[in-house]
């Protein structure tokens, strides 16, 4: 019997798991994918928004401002890359000038610190490549960027280290409510592998599938209408094209496209907004990418799109309500929905988790703080160490002297450490999220086969069982005829 089960391990579920694991509780988290942070949390703009955008008084406004305040502390404590780079909202017309003044006022109402309206000249001083058509900007110095998957991973890992049971590759398929005819006092959940669990409380953090999960207990008071957004990710050579996150003013034609550095030093450009029928439709299209490209070129004179290393798309869990849904289900006060968590969900996540804890407490979950909580987390990042520190590390473990991912300078030691971490990555894409190997300009075409071998070796998996991403994304089919000449011949 679990005290609480969290369904879905995106940033929302991970934050809930992290906060809940501070208390003496038996916790379970079930995640459909074979790794954490594999939904919207891995495919977004990675901005910790300052909070000038949401309607004052809304849940979104409160959760955003509180969430980023908590994020600063959590990232520091759990060694998550986060950079306070600031943001500019660019104006190109008198209408836009009006909009940035409105945003400024809204930001003040929401309690956003440091906002300032800049003239075109001031804006250009901080961003030399701004388009000539920029007429002014709103500066939000507290806007930050984060590594979204490491943020989720760090919180989930810490929860696991402190006793949370995590089931990966286990989609919840069926939930039987406590008050149904069975007469039991707990939820009974069954996963895609046929295993059942009993839990007294449930948090639904299933992202774009949260309406389906809610429907499992007969809840139908919200629906998700997924909205896809597409991106370019440019090489680090282009990473200094701008130093702030550059937003455009929302207009009748759309919310505008942003250009931003990432914490890893790349440049990210996107997204558009397009309603899609299938919540898992993360395909990219030529039309949308062209739209993004054109829109982004309004902000900056010259964006080196030739340096593109990857395109991707994420799906927003837009619901039929204007605000985030953070409430107990009408079906059961012990079933908490964290649903419709569209942008700024990444920014708001820990605040949403905090609210979920309140709701759980109100519904009768006893929250007793633990005294033995371990939230130390330090990552070895070879590339950022001084030569002396690197040598010391290599002397202790020579695998840190073997650079496997040449584009990002990730060593075998780091990959092995990730594979033996609290949440071992089991696919090439998961390794990429857990330690950056394969995320660089060659996108794993050089290190892919090498990482494949390390995963198989360290996890004791058959070579052919290592996948690109989720189950079924196999990489190799069968041994070659008479099997290959293992190892290199020359020498």
């Amino acid at each position, binding site marked *: 019997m679990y005290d609480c089960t969290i369904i879905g391990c995106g940033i929302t579920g991970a934050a809930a798991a992290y906060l809940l694991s501070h208390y003496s509780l038996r916790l379970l988290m079930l995640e459909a994918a074979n790794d954490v942070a594999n939904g919207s949390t891995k495919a977004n703009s990675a901005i910790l928004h300052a909070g000038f955008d949401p309607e004052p008084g809304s849940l979104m406004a409160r959760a955003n401002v509180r969430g980023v305040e908590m994020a600063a502390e959590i990232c520091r404590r759990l060694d998550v890359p986060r950079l306070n780079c600031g943001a500019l909202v660019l104006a190109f017309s008198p209408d836009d000038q009006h909009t940035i003044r409105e945003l400024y006022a809204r930001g003040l109402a929401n309690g956003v610190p440091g906002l300032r309206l800049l003239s075109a000249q001031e804006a250009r001083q901080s961003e030399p490549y701004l388009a000539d058509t920029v007429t002014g900007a709103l500066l939000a110095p507290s806007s930050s960027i984060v590594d979204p998957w490491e943020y989720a991973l760090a919180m989930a890992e810490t929860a696991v280290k402190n006793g949370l049971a995590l089931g990966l590759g286990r989609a919840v398929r069926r939930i039987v409510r406590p008050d149904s005819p069975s007469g039991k006092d707990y939820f009974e959940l069954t996963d895609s592998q046929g295993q059942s669990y009993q839990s007294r409380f449930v948090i639904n953090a299933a992202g774009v599938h949260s309406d389906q999960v809610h429907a499992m207990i007969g809840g139908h008071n919200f629906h998700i209408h997924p909205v896809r957004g597409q991106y370019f990710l440019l090489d680090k050579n282009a990473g200094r094209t701008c130093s702030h996150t550059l937003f455009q003013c929302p207009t009748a034609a759309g919310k505008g496209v942003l250009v931003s550095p990432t914490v890893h030093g790349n440049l990210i450009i996107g997204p558009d907004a397009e309603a899609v029928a299938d919540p898992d439709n993360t395909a990219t*299209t030529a039309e949308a990418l062209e739209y993004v490209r054109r829109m982004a070129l309004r902000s900056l004179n010259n964006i080196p799109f030739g340096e593109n290393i990857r395109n991707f798309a994420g799906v927003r869990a837009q619901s039929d309500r204007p605000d985030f849904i953070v409430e107990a289900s009408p079906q059961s006060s012990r079933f908490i929905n964290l649903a419709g968590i569209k942008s700024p969900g990444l920014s708001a996540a820990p605040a949403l988790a905090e609210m979920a804890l309140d709701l759980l407490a109100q519904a009768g979950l006893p929250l007793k703080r633990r005294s033995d909580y371990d939230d130390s987390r330090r990552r070895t990042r070879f590339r950022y160490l001084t030569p002396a520190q690197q040598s010391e590390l290599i002397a202790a473990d020579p695998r840190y002297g073997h650079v496997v991912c040449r584009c990002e*300078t990730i060593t075998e030691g780091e990959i092995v450490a990730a594979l033996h971490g609290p949440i071992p990555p089991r696919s090439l894409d998961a390794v990429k999220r857990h330690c950056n190997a394969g995320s660089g300009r060659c996108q794993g075409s050089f290190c892919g086969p090498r990482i494949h071998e390390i995963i198989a070796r360290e996890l004791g998996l058959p070579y052919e069982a290592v996948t690109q991403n989720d189950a079924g994304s196999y990489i190799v089919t069968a041994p070659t005829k008479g099997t290959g000449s293992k190892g290199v011949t020359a*020498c």
Partner: protein
Amino acid sequence: MLKTVKQLRDCYDVLIIGGGPAGLAAARAAWDGGARQVLIIERDSAPGGILNQCIHNGFGLHYFHEELTGPEYAGRCLDELADTEVELLLNTMVLSLDELPQEPGREALGGLLPEPVLATLNPDPLTGHPAHRVFAASPEWGSICLKSRAVILAMGCRERSRGAIRIPGTRPAGVLTAGAAQRYVNLEGWQIGRRVVILGSGDIGLIMARRLTLEGAKVLACVELMPYSSGLRRNLVQCLDDFGIPLLLSHTVTEIRGRRRVTGVTVCQVDTSRQPVAGTEQDFDCDTLLLSVGLLPENELTRAAHIPLDPRTRGAYVYENMETASAGVFACGNVAHVHDLVDYVSEESQRAGQAAAAYARGQGISGRAIPIQHGTGIGYTVPQSIHVDAAGTGQRDPAAAINLFFRVTRPQEHVSIALYDGDSCLKRWPRLRVAPGEMERLQLPPALLHGCGSGSLTLALEHAAPEEAGKND
């Protein structure tokens, strides 16, 4: 067998980054040129570079005058070093040249990390310049900084991947670069799919079309954006035609389908501006898409060392001795420009090795350097500049011809290559046919350039009357 490093030296004469055919040939030449402290640093566990996974034959016809496989060619290059004391440091990745490795992203970890500083060095008495510094990581030696009078860049190239060509659709398993597929099949011993479409008709793609077919996979088509192939003609015949694999010229892949593994791709014809033509979509039911869409010289180190790169070759600007704009730093092989034939890599690298040895003993090149302008039809040249009066300076044998490699911008027949000094034509070389996929080479007699007075050389492609355009060499 090469000497492995027992002890790191204080300062090398010539340090070579990359132990592929380029690095190996450069090392031999540096040794022959009198350098005695020569080190090759290779990140892999064996030397040989990309040749180790090229188990097909077709290597060495020009250089060794026999047909070898890739690993055999690499073996020969190593044999050539047998009687030298060139040292080899394996499993060691060079992280940067002359500057401490700069990894973007450290700011995001909030000032926790100390910022290292690099001291300046005094000029070396022999070369007059401070020694170059090479930073590397090695399981055996740790994080090291090696000094050397001359450095040769021989890092080879990498493949362009999906992002560079922006193919829309899903992002499933089964989309690989041809080189990654080659590694899986030839070195790891695993097949990568059963029904394969290949995008791009570069040589690696062509070679893999044949290799996968021999392994029992069905290669459905090779799709090429341009109206001509970028591969060698012999590979088109031996790898596609011989196996009945269709080559779809002026076509491209416009969509990838499949959530977990590729389930199909859409192929479209393109118009003259290379845009897909609506209504020409063909669906292929396949589980694999191989990308053979070009190679990029691996110049991250070069760029970080602020050595100017030529946007056309994507390699460093080099003089005829393969020296870059940074005195004492040379580049050769695929890192300087992408070669089709390894034989030319070896030859070019010998020149780099010789010149580096001369530099290390204080005989650096000097004098008047003239850039080569590109006339019509010329895609790039290597070298980009020539010291016209350097013959007999210790860098260059007065009788030796100067090699000029170049590529044309599009396939043409019955042309001549013309070299101009200002407005006056120095010489014309006839060619029956030229194509961007086949690198061309000219050997310029030193006397030809000696009087070069205008300060500007131009190479151009001109139409020739059919009878003038004789044979192809």
